[in-house]
């Protein structure tokens, strides 16, 4: 197992390097640059800017310098758009916010989604099943960019219960709407995957045996059915967790949370190369890490899997 983990981490290094090089090239291939603006910057000023940010170097030198700074100094460079700040600062400030609302939304989505899915499977074809399926389909088809304004309309304008946006260091009342808006569609997917996987497991031989032994239903579900039924859900949760904690542009845009989601999208639009690279690397590392975590959990859940 330890060998396996070390091997996986070793493969991660070249993967990240390839990611850096590819992202770098793709970004520079896009038309326009960080200093393209409505008012064309005169050539002499552009030259000064490019010199300051090292854009006057040949591309391979830029990539090399970048990798060197990241690897040896953990320095992701200055932002090209937010000129008073460095990428390290932007991520250090925004990522904890995204991580907070993302994790809470994740836990919420898993608890509600799994419960809904299990309930629907156990009471298959009952009103509870229909209700659970109805909720999950409803939640799935309602994208968060539609839901966010509706939430603000209801809870801020009509009811006056919650502030319409802001973060305030994660105070609960500022957290509620972002969490609901972010978790809903994940919750819906988890519920659907859980339901179908649970239905399948409930018809499996070992469950039939357990029933034949006369075990109480509760024990069958919690001891024998839940764990194997979780497998497909777990494989979904890895990438889902990463996408939740690396930020949602919609959440940051609508709720002014200050997370990195909006920075990521704006960086692409503004050609803010360094911020774009920084967040891409962050997401890449987290994706690799959580895929590994998922694989480890797999081995724990399913005794058949051995590394």
């Amino acid at each position: 197992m330890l060998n396996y983990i070390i091997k996986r981490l070793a493969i991660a290094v070249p993967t990240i390097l390839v990611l850096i090089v590819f992202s770098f090239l793709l970004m520079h291939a896009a038309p326009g640059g960080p200093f393209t603006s409505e008012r064309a910057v005169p050539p002499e000023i552009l030259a000064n800017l490019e010199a300051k940010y090292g854009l006057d170097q040949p591309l391979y030198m830029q990539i090399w310098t970048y990798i060197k700074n990241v690897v040896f100094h953990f320095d992701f460079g200055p932002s090209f758009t937010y000129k008073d700040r460095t990428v390290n600062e932007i991520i250090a400030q925004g990522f904890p916010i995204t991580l907070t609302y993302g994790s809470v939304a994740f836990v919420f989505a898993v608890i509600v989604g799994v419960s809904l899915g299990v309930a629907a499977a156990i009471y298959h074809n009952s009103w509870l099943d229909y209700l659970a399926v109805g909720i999950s389909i409803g939640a799935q088809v309602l994208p968060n960019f539609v839901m966010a304004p509706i939430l603000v309309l209801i809870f801020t304008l009509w009811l006056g219960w919650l502030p319409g946006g802001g973060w305030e260091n994660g105070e609960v009342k500022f957290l509620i709407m972002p969490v609901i808006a972010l978790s809903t569609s994940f919750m819906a997917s988890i519920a659907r995957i859980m339901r179908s996987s649970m239905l399948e497991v409930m018809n499996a031989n070992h469950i039939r045996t357990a029933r034949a032994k006369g075990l109480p239903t509760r024990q069958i579900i919690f001891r024998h059915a839940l764990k194997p039924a979780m497998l497909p859900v777990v494989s979904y949760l890895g990438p889902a967790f990463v996408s939740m904690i690396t930020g949602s542009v919609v959440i940051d845009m609508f709720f002014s949370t200050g997370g990195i989601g909006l920075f990521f999208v704006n960086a692409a639009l503004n050609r803010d190369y360094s911020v774009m690279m920084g967040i891409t690397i962050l997401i890449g590392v987290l994706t690799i890490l959580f895929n590994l975590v998922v694989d480890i959990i797999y081995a724990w859940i399913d005794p058949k899997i051995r590394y």
Partner: protein
Amino acid sequence: MKTNLFISAAACALLAMPTMAATPMEGEKLAAEQVYTYRLLDDIKSFDPQINTDVEGSEIMRDLFEGLMNEDATGGLVPGAAESYTVSDDKLTYTFNLRDAKWSNGDPVTANDFVYAWRRLVDPATASEYAWYMELMGVKNASKVVKGEVAPDQLGVRAVDDKTFEVTIDTALPYFAAMTVHGSTFPVNQKVVETHGSEWTKPGNLVGNGAYVLTEYRSGERVVRERNPMYWDDANTIIEKTVGLIVNDENIALTRYLAGEMDQTDIPAGQYPRLKAELPDDTYSYPRSCSYIYWFNQGEKGNPALKDARVRKALSYTIDREVVVDRILQGGQYQSYNFTHQKTAGFELPEIDYASWTQAERDAKAKELLAEAGYGPDNPLSVKISYNTDEAHKKIAIAVSQFWKQKLGVNTELANSEWKVHTTNMQNGDYEIARYAWCGDYNEASTYLDLMTSYSGHNVSGWSDPEYDKLMKDSKTMADPNPNYAAGEQLLADNMVFAPIYQYTGIIMLKPEVKGFPIDNLMQNWYSRELYIVEK
């Protein structure tokens, strides 16, 4: 406001001019809490006056710092950090007499602070995107410093003594003093900048000479500035605290405004008529110094048909501006037949022929011109309109393509692209017809008209005319440049270098309790210290 805006007579001081401050009217009772909360569209890119490039940053800059001159509620020039100024006989040397004022850390504001900031703007080491502004101001050696040909200390600025700041410019500019209202000319405290380096704009480090200090900045969330007790006119300031809430989505911002979380927000496109009917006391539409046009590319990479002025005219004539303004935009915008925003200070709107025609007359003339140019049912014209992705630009492009199809039988292809791609294409001359908008840097017509000269870096049309260049050059030294501006606009219309479409209005929601917001200022240069909040 035409008179007195630009005082060109030598040695004419501004001593008698009033300064600004929040001045409640008689009978108005101030609210107990003087906090002004408004919406910011995006995160602030920089709090450094010499680095900032955007409008929202400038609003904050005007609170945190103070330049030589300020604008009053109608856009008129009033003294700022300078109490008065004098101009030499040759109009090339400006001497600003600074008032006794302090930085927010208690240091006195001196002429050296201005010298330092102005050199900093053009210093290649600063790499300011707005270094061109000082070139535009014509400050001696500005271009050479930017190019690295001479050292920054060769810039035509000097501190005669602590309270006297002298600027030498290359050519007389009647509106030079007005240009010092711009944020990139604001002073910075050398000691603070050098002590903290790149950290100097962080709340706590940032020291300004404006009426407010930066007390809180939460990226992506909000910017807070609070009253600066060191400000020279603090006694006449009323607002204690100004909060900018960063709300990216305009509809959410509107909802939050309606829920009472904000005192001011922008009105999303198309919602002005409804809000005006529902909340007439909160909705405002006022002129805003931007002009919306369709470039016709007459360069090498453009559509050859567009090199013919008759074709360009036919296309422009058939655009029904009334439909664009009243049916699509619905925010009180102005139909446009020229380039300069018609509310620009001192600008007299020239009589452009087709502006006074009826739409039917324009259409008839257009058909005639297009037929003369050789296009008709047998040989239909095909063109391509490029615009950056945006709902309003799309609606206008669709409407225009329909005008052209129905009235002239012209086939139009619509192409939208992301903003940076669109801009790059325009600047490279890779387009046929492109949507563009220019916003004035200062409240004078040359901020528009200089754009169309052959030596302007912004003229992407491929058109140039020595006569036009001469008109603009000569206008710089004229007591009344209006005849030249009118002639310039006439040349643009005769050649139909671009199709003017509309001129902007700002449409905002503003709580009726908030007073002193300068809606009559074309540049919307507002200062928190001019505002105050009355009891409901």
